[in-house]
Every structure is written in structure tokens, then in C-alpha cells.
């Protein structure tokens, strides 16, 4: 419906604005979980353990993926379709790599005896990283769809496609930043 009010001064695109509101609610979900973590931790009977090293690798991977997606979008705007396609694919592959590394991290936790159903300190790590991974998977789906579009659709720079890529980019930056926050939280709380 944005076209309805084109004559009016648009403060911000309504879709982007809606996305931000959605992200605010996602953020609240995680804020709730991390607060619950602190409340529960303060109550004692709390198992201390080292976070799996895979979580640190995955952090690097998602940061790189974010940067690459940024470059991909910029190249699209400049009409450099060759680089754009490759970067987009690369970014999606790294996103997938992130999820796989998280999974490896969970296996590692099982290996050292921290189970989902054990002490809540472990359960929290599973739930927080798991719920985050679900959000990454959501973004990844969109990312892979845009890869398909990039390779199949015509090589044209349209406002609509640019806009969609921007939405995706902002979401992707968000889940990346969210993970950094969650990881820092888990490190600092222990």
C-alpha cells in the first residue's frame, strides 16, 4: 500500500518499519529468556560448564556472512550481476554453515554431559541457541529464495528487488547481532 501515499513525505518505508517492529518483538523474546536465565541463576544449584568451541567458530561465520551479504546488495544496486550472484550464494552457504556449527556445538555439549533435560543452566543454553537457530533458518529460507531469484530472474535493477534485498539484509544483520549479544551474555554470566 506504500504507493498510496507516494506524494506524502515518507518518513520510512512501511515494510521496513513493520520489519523493525517484528524484530523488536523477537528481541523481547530473547530478553525474556536471558532475564529468566539470570533470575534462575541467582537462585543457586547451577551447573557451570564451558561453552562449546563451535559457538565461537559459528560467530565468525555469521559475521562474515553478514558482511558478504552487504557487499552483495551493494553490487546489485550497482548492476554488477556477476559478483552479486556469487556473493549472495556465498553468504547463503555461510549461513547454512552457521546452523551446522551450532548443531555441532549441541553435540559437543552432549558429549561433555550437559543434556537438554539436565540442570537448567544447560537447558537454557540449548533453548536460547536453538530458538536463535530457528530465526536464522527463517532468514536462510529467504536468503536461498533470493539466490534462486538472482540466478533465474532477469539481470535488471528494479526498485522492488532492491527493496526486498534490503529487508533481507536488515533481518540478516539482526540475527547476526542477536547471536553476538547472546554469546556475550552467556560468556559474561559465567
Amino acid at each position: 500500500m506504500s504507493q498510496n501515499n507516494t506524494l506524502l513525505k515518507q518518513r520510512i518505508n512501511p515494510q521496513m518499519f513493520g520489519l523493525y517492529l517484528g524484530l523488536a518483538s523477537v528481541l523481547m523474546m530473547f530478553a525474556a529468556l536471558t532475564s529468566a536465565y539470570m533470575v534462575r541463576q541467582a537462585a543457586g544449584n547451577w551447573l557451570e560448564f564451558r561453552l562449546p568451541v563451535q559457538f565461537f567458530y559459528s560467530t565468525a561465520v555469521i559475521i562474515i556472512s553478514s558482511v558478504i551479504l552487504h557487499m552483495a546488495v551493494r553490487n546489485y544496486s550497482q548492476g554488477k550481476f556477476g559478483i552479486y550472484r556469487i556473493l549472495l550464494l556465498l553468504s547463503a552457504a555461510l549461513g547454512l554453515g552457521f546452523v551446522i556449527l551450532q548443531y555441532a556445538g549441541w553435540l559437543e555439549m552432549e558429549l561433555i554431559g550437559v543434556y537438554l533435560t539436565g540442570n537448567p543452566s544447560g537447558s537454557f543454553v540449548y533453548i536460547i541457541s536453538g530458538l536463535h537457530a530457528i530465526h536464522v533458518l527463517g532468514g536462510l529460507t529467504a536468503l536461498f529464495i533470493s539466490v534462486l531469484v538472482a540466478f533465474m530472474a532477469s539481470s535488471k535493477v528494479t526498485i522492488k528487488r532492491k527493496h526486498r534485498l534490503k529487508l533481507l539484509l536488515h533481518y540478516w544483520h539482526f540475527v547476526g547481532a542477536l547471536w553476538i549479544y547472546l554469546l556475550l551474555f552467556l560468556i559474561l554470566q559465567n
Partner: protein
Amino acid sequence: MATLTKIDEEKLIQEQGYNDHFHDHHHGDKYKSNFITTYIFSMDHKIIAKQFLITGMFWAIIGAGMSIIFRLQLGFPEEDYSWLRYLLGKWIVLDEAGVGSLSQEFYYALVTMHGTILVFFVLTAGLSGTFSNLLIPLQVGARDMASPLLNMMSYWFFFMAGLVMFISLFVSTGPFSGGWTAYPPLSALPQASSGSGAGMTLWLVSLVLFVVSVLLGGINYVTTVLNLRTKGMSMWRMPLTIWAFLITAIIGILSFPVLVSGFLLLILDRSLGTSFYLSEIFIGGQALDHVGGSPVLYQHLFWFLGHPEVYIIILPAMGIVSEVLSVHARKPIFGYKAMVLSILAIAFLSFIVWAHHMFMSGVNPFISNFFVLFTLIIAVPSAVKVFNWIATLYGGNIRFNSPMLFAIGFVSMFISGGLTGIFLGNSTIDIQMHDTYFVVAHFHIVMGIAAFFGMFAGIYHWFPKMYSRFMNDTLGKIHFWGTLIGAYAIFWPMHYLGIAGVPRRYYSFDTFDTFRHFGTMNQFITVAAIVVFALQLLFVVNFFYSIWKGKKVTTQNPWGATTLEWTTPITPGHGNWPGNIPAVQRWAYDYGKDGREFISQIEPLAEGEKEH
């Protein structure tokens, strides 16, 4: 256009409204192709508003009907209820003499369902869903919501949530029965009670669907208000309804996700065996292997939503009441800016008082002090609003019609219920009052009845916009006076029960000598409840009768109101305004200015006229 200068163009928009080329292309067909897309899967905000309203009314009848059944058992425990077997089947148990009574298990289930349905389905979806949808585009001057598709999905998620909850009423183990707040362990252990099994699972599914609906709706409302206002509609010119819906939606976006997190942990405790909320529990003599959890953690997460939720319910009602009072007192709302600021203050404070529901849950008394303080501070913006409503009425040229009566009734209820909130907000007094009928009286008056009054005021007032007909005013007045007196008759005595310590949610007080003499009081309350329920059916009859047979609206602006919805045709089509969107020239409350009864928002300021 090309030859026009910028200033000319501005002037043209001022005079003739703003042409967004909405009607240039032929997309009317997209919306009005057949019955299904027009009335069922509609994306038009006006139809979606009616869907929310009528679904809300359906749930209100079910939810209130439940309360009549459990009130009968509570007020007249000796009566024979075997006739209810036709409706409730095995939930009516017969003793040796063949006397039927409501089963204890189902009594709790009814209380739980009553609370859940009224709080979420009726007073959240039915109230804010209906009026945000109807009024936001109409009053800010937009063709529709920012995303009509998400808007439609918001309704259908609500519908599905209702469907799942409805199904849960019929499972053989019964619906969930652990209270609308769903505290663990009753909610976390499927074996804890019969309603804790399938009933609770469905309850959780239903509420998660419901949250999706609230978020989709809320994102849409906020985006529309902030981005799609028409030319000239600055924030400080918005009617208070819009302010209220905006802030309500923001509260929802920030608080409902927290509830989802709480539910997520609950679902894992139920199904995967984690121990977030469970610790050292014995059930049926058996020790469970859950250790290390904390049920209070759930209460924190629940009430972090739960308290803002009560303001999600009441703020839209406040917005509606502000508007209705001003229109029918023919006076500008008193203290417009103070009204907005107090909405903002209430919204902010509502996030930092949640633990006043947990004074008796083992929260550190030292920390409780902070929550006492913030809780009592909420009384300040609340009092500002009450003062301004009364000041708006003062010296007004009041029309005592149905919408106005309900708006005034709202103020009365909000004062009565708000005062008892101040009692409860003191943690020391709450030691005696917590979980008694005093709390039941408090929140039914301040939230239940007040929000219903706000909703009724809105329905009677905007019915002409929704259905191009009026509701019957005489029936409306009977409805009002009966409900006002009846509601006080139900809930006033409950304060005394509560002060005497009578606990809420008990099936029977026979075994307690202290409470036995309250028998007649309970009978009185039950009778009053039945009368009030019957009066609501009268409203429903009036509503549906008026849709088809009510007095027709013949003028565009029957109430003489200033806001934009009354500049649309009597029956607005898709896109709301047949031609250009009107440009706004002034605030929404120019009543009795310069000797004129009212001045519409679209009328330009006269030469030398100062904006309010």
C-alpha cells in the same frame, strides 16, 4: 500539474484534499469479486473490524455463560442441576439421591476458561481488534491498513486460536483447569489434574496462535498510524482513540513475546522433560525426577506480560471513552496533551510493576518495596485521566444517549476499581487480600466492567459508521442502567467477602465455619449475575435487530463530530473516500469554538483563527 508551483500545489491539497490516484486504476475488483472475498477472507479493514467484533461477541456469550453455570453452583449448591446434563453431560455428577451438581474438576475448568476467554478473546481481540481496525484508517485518513494481507491473517489466527480453544472444551479429560494464569506445576505436569493433559496442550496451542494474531495486528496498527496519516494529520492532531490504539499496540508488541518465551519453557517442561519450572515434586506419592526448576520464574514471565495486558485491555477503552465523552458533551476533551502524556506514562509504568501480583509468591520483601512504589505511582496518571474526563463533562451540553451513558459509566467503574487497586498495591495489605474475592472484585470492576463499558460506548457510537443504522436508544438505556446497577450488585459485596478472607476459586465453603454465613450473599451475587447476563442478551438482540431493521442514518455526520470517519460517505466503500483523501487542518476537538457547535478537522483555519 507541472506548471503549478509547490505553494499552489499545497493550497490545492488544502482545499480539495489529497489525490493519491487510488481510484485511477481498476483494482476495486480485487477486493469485491465475490461473497467469499468480500465477507470472509476480506482484506478491508472495516469488514475485518466487524469480524473481530462478532467473533468477540460469540466468545463473550460463551465466557459469560460459563460464569453463570459456576455461579449457580456457588450460590445454590444444594439445588439439583441434573437438567444441565443435556449441556454438560458427565460433568454433572449425581449423588445417591439423584441430585446433580457440577463436578469440582469442571468447576475449575469453567473458571479457567471464563478468565482466559474474557481476557484474551473478548477484551483483547474483541475490543482492540475491532476498534483499531475500524478507526485507525478512518481517523488518520488512510485508504486501509499498511498491510491488508497481514491484517486479514491477524483475524484468521485469532479465529484459529478460538477454534482450538473451543475444541478443548470437548476433550474427554476436559479443558485446562488451573486458572487463567496457568501457573506450574498444574500447567506443567500433564498428570497433575485431568485438565492438565490434553486440555492444557490445546490451551497452549491456542494462546500461541493468539499471540501471532496480536503481533500481526499490532505491527500493522503501529505502521499505519506512524506512516499512513493523511496530509496535515500531525501526531498532536490525532484523536485520543488513535493515541490509545497506537500505544496499546506497542505494549502488545513488547510484552506478548515475553509470554511466548514463558510458554516455550513450559512446553519443554511438559513434553521434553526439562526442569525450568519444576523442582522436587511429589505427585500421587511418587517423587518426580525434575530438580532445579523454579515455579516463580514462570510467574515473572507471565506477569511481565500479564500486567501490561490489563492495560492493553483498558487503554483502547480509555481512548474510546475520551472521544465519546467529548463528542456528546459538545466540549473539547479537557487537557488533551495531559491525556496523551498519561497514556504514555501508564504504558511505561505498566512494564515495571508486574511483581505486585507476586507479593505472596515468596518474592523478597525488600524488592517488593520497589514494586509497591511503582504500582502506587500508576495511580497518578490514572487520576489525571479521571480528572480530565470529569472536567470534560463539567459544564458540557451533555446528550444522555446510550454511548454517552456507557462512557460516563466507564469513568464511575474506573474510579471504583482503581481505588481498590491502591489497597492491593500495598504489599502489607495484600497479605490479607491476595487470592481473595477482594482481588476478584477489584479486577472485574476496573477491567472487566470498565472495559466492557468502553466497548459498549464504542459500539453504540460507531454503529452508524459500521452498519449505516442506529441501534435502538431505549433498549440501550435499559441495557446501561440495568448493567450499571447489576454490575455493582455483583461486585460490591465481593469486597466484603474478600476483606473477611474468603478465598477465590473455591468450589464450596461448606467446610469453613467462618465463611458459612456468606451463603445468602453468594445467592444474591448469583441472582444479580443472571440478571446482568440476561441484559447482555438484550444488547445482542438490539445489535442484530439494528443491523437490518435499525433507524437508517440519513446524514453523513449524525453526531456532529469533528473526526475524519464522518467525512466518508454514509456507507464507505473500499478505500473509504470516493475521491481524494481529505487534508486535515486542525485538531480533533474543536467543539463550541468561536460560537460554532463543532468544526470538522478538514475545515481550514479561518482568517486570524488560532489553532486551539
